[in-house]
């Protein structure tokens, strides 16, 4: 069963006075198998972030249908989703614990389990010691990690992460990868975007490739990889086929 289905999603940005409207997403269609890790890969400006923003209703779509757990996005579905944006600008005036409490209170009706779950999430991202520091004192890597902590705090069924490893040092990247692997083991369906193909090869079982707003591949990673020596080759080839450069 697909945990997320995106059907014929279109999005156009209005142009300026002398510019034409820009058609950013063109009939984007893909689905996420439940319990798997799906990579969403494409070069910069290919429409990954816009797709995610349309999926989560941060942007109004021109047309198309998006189903989470078989239904359009509603508060019940949102309770089951964890999300981390591309650049996690967080409320810097809050401490780590206050930030997690805010996100707990927006999802849960009772505060009973909060302390235990917050400590668990902070330990997993290696920020337990910094839990009472204000977020404005955090480094970029720490902000990314506390962002991941809020995403996993409510034990979501689906984690949507937009470029979760961008701008992190090797240690930070390793830590994030470990967290994603742990979440996958727990049975969480993962959907994360990246333009770094190595991450996809390491973590994903399923792949969605997007180029210039068009999905050029949606399926398992293995058959895709069998045809090519590396994901880079496959990605380049698939792009060329779609653009009509290779017969």
């Amino acid at each position, binding site marked *: 069963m697909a945990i997320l289905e995106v059907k014929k999603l279109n999005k156009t940005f209005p142009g300026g006075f002398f510019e034409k409207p820009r058609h950013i997403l063109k009939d984007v269609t893909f689905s996420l198998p439940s319990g798997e890790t799906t990579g969403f890969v494409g070069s910069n400006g290919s429409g990954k972030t816009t797709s995610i923003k349309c999926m989560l209703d941060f942007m109004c779509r021109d047309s198309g249908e998006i189903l989470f757990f078989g239904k359009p996005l509603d508060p019940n579905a*949102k309770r089951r989703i964890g999300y*981390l944006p591309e650049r996690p600008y*967080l409320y810097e005036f809050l401490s780590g614990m*206050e930030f997690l409490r805010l996100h707990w209170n927006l999802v849960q009706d009772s505060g009973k389990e909060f302390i235990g779950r917050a400590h668990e999430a902070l330990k997993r991202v290696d920020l337990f010691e910094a839990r009472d520091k204000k977020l404005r004192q955090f480094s970029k890597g720490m902000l990314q990690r506390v962002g991941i902590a809020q995403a996993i705090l409510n034990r979501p069924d689906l984690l949507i992460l937009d470029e979760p490893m961008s701008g992190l040092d090797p240690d930070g990247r390793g830590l994030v990868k470990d967290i994603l692997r742990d979440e996958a083991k727990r049975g969480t369906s993962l959907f994360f975007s990246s333009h770094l193909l190595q991450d996809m090869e390491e973590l994903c079982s399923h792949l969605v490739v997007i180029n210039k707003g068009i999905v050029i591949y949606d399926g398992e990673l293995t058959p895709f990889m069998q045809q090519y020596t590396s994901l880079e080759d496959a990605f380049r080839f698939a792009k060329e086929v779609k653009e009509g450069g290779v017969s």
Partner: protein
Amino acid sequence: MKKVLVIAKTTLQEMIRERLFIVIVFMAAVLLGISLLLGALSFSEQQRILANLGFTAIEVASVGISLFAGAFLLAKEIEKQTLLLVLARPISRDQFLMGKVVGILALNTMMVLVLGFVLYFLLGANPSFSSFFVILSSIWFEAAIVLSLVIFFSTVVRPILALLMAFGILMLGQWIPDLQFFAEKSKEMLFINGVKIVTWVTPNLFRFNWKSYYFLELGFDSQDVLWMIAHSFGWALIFFVFACLTFRRKDIV
């Protein structure tokens, strides 16, 4: 409702910790101090000067908080994209906006009460408490209308422009009787009709501009107070509904 309160609490924390509140309260306290000094210059008019300037200081602080917080807090959330994480949670955009308004109004309430308390005792606790409270309420309601208005504008245009537009409407609302007077005198149909349109689309803030010693002594008719409450609530609601309608369709790019 719980989610609205969660956002309101965070908004309140933000304004207190980001020190916007402290700066504005400091300015109001300075104005109160100046009014006390000016009042001391004239023994017979001391109470009058202190009351008039004191109420003005509270109004400047209260409307100032509404204008600046309303214009910049939401814009900052959109620009820095901090609201993405919040809107990914089971909370609607209307609830988010309502939380922002409640948070800013909570701060305004605290500030009006604290400064009002100080002014009341500077006036020697002599004035009628009910009249004093009605005047403070009129300031609070004016700030509530301005807040809804500036939040509506900030969902449509950039924050500086939203602030200027809301300030313009605030001034128009205060000048309605003057505009009507000049329109009648001019006998120009264009001017008269223009002023009529302005009176329809602008809250009449002049009618509850009671920030003077005169009203403190005179007291209030309950009908006027009820009119103020209904008028303010109606306009604040209209602007808030417009804000929700535009914010629902806004792309968080």
